[in-house]
C-alpha cells in the first residue's frame, strides 16, 4: 500500500516538473538573445575580416533567421540530444558539459554527504545540551564556517598544506606529468580532491549543523518524546529513533536545495583550486562568449534543481506519512 502511494506521489511530482522544464527551456533560449554582445564578433576577434564574412558566418549558423524559427530549431535539436557546438572548445556542448558536470559531482557529492552526516551528528550531540559550553561553541563555530569566504579559506588551505607543508597538491584534478590508469589514477584524483572537498565541506557543515541543531531542539520539546521516555527507552534510542527522524525534514530541505545549486555553486572553489568542473567551464565560457556552452550549463543546472526538488519531495514523502497523503491531494 505504501509503495504504491509513494509511486503515485512521484508521478504527481514529475507531472508538475515537466511544464517547469519546458518553461526553463524557452526562457533559457530567449535570455541569451537579450544579452548584449555579438558571438560572431567574438568568434572573428580583432582579425580584419573581409566585408560580408561576418554575414556569411551568421548565415551558416542560422543566426540571421527569425527568433521563433531559431527557438524551434533549438528545441528540435535538443530533442535529438544536440546542444550545439562549442566554438571555443571545438567540441559538441553536450559531451563537454556532461564530462565537466561529472568532475563537479566528484567534488560536490562526497563533500555534501560528509557535511550532511557531520552536521547532523554535531547537532544531535549539541541540541540535548542546549546552552552548554559545547553547544555554544558549536553555534559560534558554525557561524564562523558559514561566514568564511570560501575562496579565501581555499587559498589559506593551499598556502598551508600545499605551499608550506607540501602535503597536498595545490591545484587541478590529476597529476599532469604522468599518465595513470586504474587504481593509481583513482588515488591520484582522491589526492587532489582532499583540499577542495575540505573547503566545500566546511561551508556546508556549518549550514547543516545550524539547521539541524534548531530542528533537533524543536523535536526534543515535542510531546511524543515524553511518551518514548515514559516507556523506558534509553536516551540514545529516543534521540535516534524518535527525535532524529522527526527533525530530518528541514535538514533534507537544506541539503536538497544546496544540491540543486551545487553543480554551479562550486564556481569559487573550482576557480581557486583549478578544478576542471562545470563552474570553471562556466567562467571561461563567459569570457569567450561561448553561448551554446552557457546555454547548456543553464539548462543542466535548471534541470538539476528541478530534479533535486522532486527528489527532496520524495525524501519528505518517505520520511513523513502525512506528506504522502496530503501531498497527493494537493498535487
Amino acid at each position: 500500500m505504501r509503495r504504491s502511494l509513494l509511486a503515485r506521489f512521484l508521478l504527481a511530482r514529475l507531472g508538475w516538473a515537466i511544464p517547469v522544464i519546458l518553461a526553463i527551456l524557452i526562457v533559457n533560449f530567449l535570455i541569451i538573445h537579450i544579452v548584449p554582445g555579438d558571438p560572431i564578433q567574438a568568434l572573428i576577434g580583432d582579425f580584419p575580416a573581409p566585408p560580408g564574412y561576418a554575414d556569411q558566418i551568421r548565415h551558416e549558423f542560422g543566426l540571421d533567421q527569425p527568433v521563433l524559427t531559431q527557438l524551434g530549431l533549438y528545441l528540435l535539436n535538443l530533442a535529438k540530444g544536440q546542444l550545439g557546438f562549442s566554438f571555443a572548445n571545438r567540441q559538441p556542448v553536450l559531451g563537454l558539459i556532461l564530462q565537466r558536470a561529472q568532475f563537479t559531482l566528484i567534488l560536490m557529492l562526497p563533500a555534501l554527504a560528509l557535511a550532511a552526516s557531520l552536521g547532523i551528528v554535531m547537532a544531535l550531540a549539541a541540541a540535548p545540551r542546549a546552552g552548554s559550553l559545547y553547544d555554544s561553541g558549536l553555534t559560534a563555530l558554525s557561524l564562523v564556517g558559514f561566514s568564511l569566504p570560501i575562496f579565501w579559506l581555499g587559498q589559506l588551505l593551499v598556502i598551508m598544506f600545499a605551499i608550506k607543508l607540501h602535503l597536498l597538491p595545490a591545484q587541478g584534478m590529476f597529476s599532469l606529468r604522468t599518465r595513470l590508469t586504474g587504481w593509481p589514477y583513482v588515488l591520484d584524483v582522491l589526492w587532489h580532491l582532499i583540499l577542495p572537498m575540505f573547503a566545500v565541506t566546511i561551508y556546508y557543515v556549518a549550514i547543516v549543523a545550524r539547521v539541524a541543531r534548531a530542528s533537533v531542539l524543536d523535536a526534543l520539546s515535542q510531546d511524543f518524546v515524553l511518551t518514548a521516555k515514559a516507556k523506558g527507552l534509553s536516551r540514545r534510542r529516543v534521540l535516534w529513533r524518535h527525535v532524529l527522524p522527526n527533525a530530518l525534514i528541514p535538514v533534507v530541505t537544506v541539503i536538497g536545495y544546496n544540491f540543486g545549486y551545487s553543480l554551479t555553486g562550486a564556481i569559487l572553489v573550482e576557480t581557486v583550486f583549478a578544478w576542471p568542473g562545470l563552474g570553471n567551464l562556466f567562467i571561461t565560457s563567459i569570457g569567450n562568449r561561448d553561448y551554446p556552452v552557457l546555454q547548456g550549463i543553464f539548462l543542466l543546472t535548471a534541470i538539476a534543481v528541478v530534479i533535486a526538488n522532486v527528489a527532496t519531495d520524495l525524501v519528505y514523502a518517505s520520511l513523513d506519512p502525512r506528506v504522502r497523503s496530503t501531498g497527493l491531494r494537493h498535487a
Partner: protein
Amino acid sequence: MSPTKPPILQIEDVRLTFRTREGAIRALNGASLTIHEGEAVGLVGESGSGKSTLARAVLGLNPERSSRIEAGRILMAGRDVTWLSQGEWEGERGHPVAMVFQDPLSFLNPIMRIGRQIAESIERHTPQRRVAERVGELLELVKLPSSLARAYPHELSGGMRQRALLAVALACEPRLLVADEPTTALDVTTQAEILALLRDLRERLGMAMLLITHDLGIVASACERLYVIYAGRVLEWGRTQNVFAAPAHPYTVGLFHAARADRDAKGRFATIGGEPPDLGEPAQGCPFAPRCPKAMTECVRSMPDATVLDQGESHAVRCWLYPQPGDAASASGRVVGG
C-alpha cells in the same frame, strides 16, 4: 480495595522547584499521596495546581536541567526513586509504573506506525514474547482492530489514538498506570468509552491507577479515593464517597459548586473568586487563603497539619477550620464545617 494492600506508590512531602528566567517557581510545595496495589486514585486540581508536575515526577519526566526536587521522598513499590539521575531513570520507567498522557495526537510519534510504537515497549520490557503477536493482543485489549498496527497516528480518530497510547503503556505491563488527563482532549461520548475501558482494564489486569483530572465527575465514576491539590499542596483527601458526601476544605466546596453549576443568590454560576496563586512567591500559610471566603488570620501565617475527619482515617483535610491534632481542647470555637 482495602488499604491493607501494600503501597505501590508513596509520595511524601515532595517539594519541587522549576528554575525559569523570572526566578524559581515552587510547583510542588509539600505534596503527599499514597496509592496501594490495585487501587484507583484521583488527583483533582485546576490548571497550574501542580498535578501534571506530580504525575511526571513519579517517572522522573520533569525537565532535568530546569527542575529539582528539593525535599521529600518518592517510593515506587517501596524503592526510593527520588534522587535517580536521568541515566538511572532509563532502567526504571514503564515498569512497575507506566504513563499515558493528555493529548493523544501530540504524544504519539507522528511518523512511526502504531504497531512499532507499541512494539518498542514490548521489546524493552518483555523481550521474550513474540512481538507481532503481542502487538495484536494489546490492540485487542484496548478494543482496536489488530490491523491498525500498520496505521499512522494521523489516520486515527482521537479516541482510537488514546487507545493506542494506552496500548503503548500497557505493553510495559505496569502495576500502576498514571493517566494524566486521559480524556480531556476527547468529546463526551469518547470520554465515557475510554473511562469504561480503563475500568475494565484495571479489573482484568489488577492494575492500580492514578487518574489526574480537573473533572470531579470523572473521579466519581472511576476512582475509589481522591486527592485535591492546589498550588502544589494537597489540601484534602479521602474515599471518594466520603469527600463527595461532605467536602471539608473551602476550596473543595468551591470546586463542587462550580462542577454542579450551582447558582449564587443573583442567579449567576458559582465560581471561585480571585486568581490562581503566584507560585513564584509561595505563601507562608494556606495557598488558598487569598481566595477563601472563610479565611482567618491563622490561614495567612502558617499551613495547618492534617485533620482526620472520620474514624476510618480515610478522609482528611488541611485547614484551620478543623481542630488541629493535639489541640482538641481549643478546637470547639473553630469548627465551622464545610
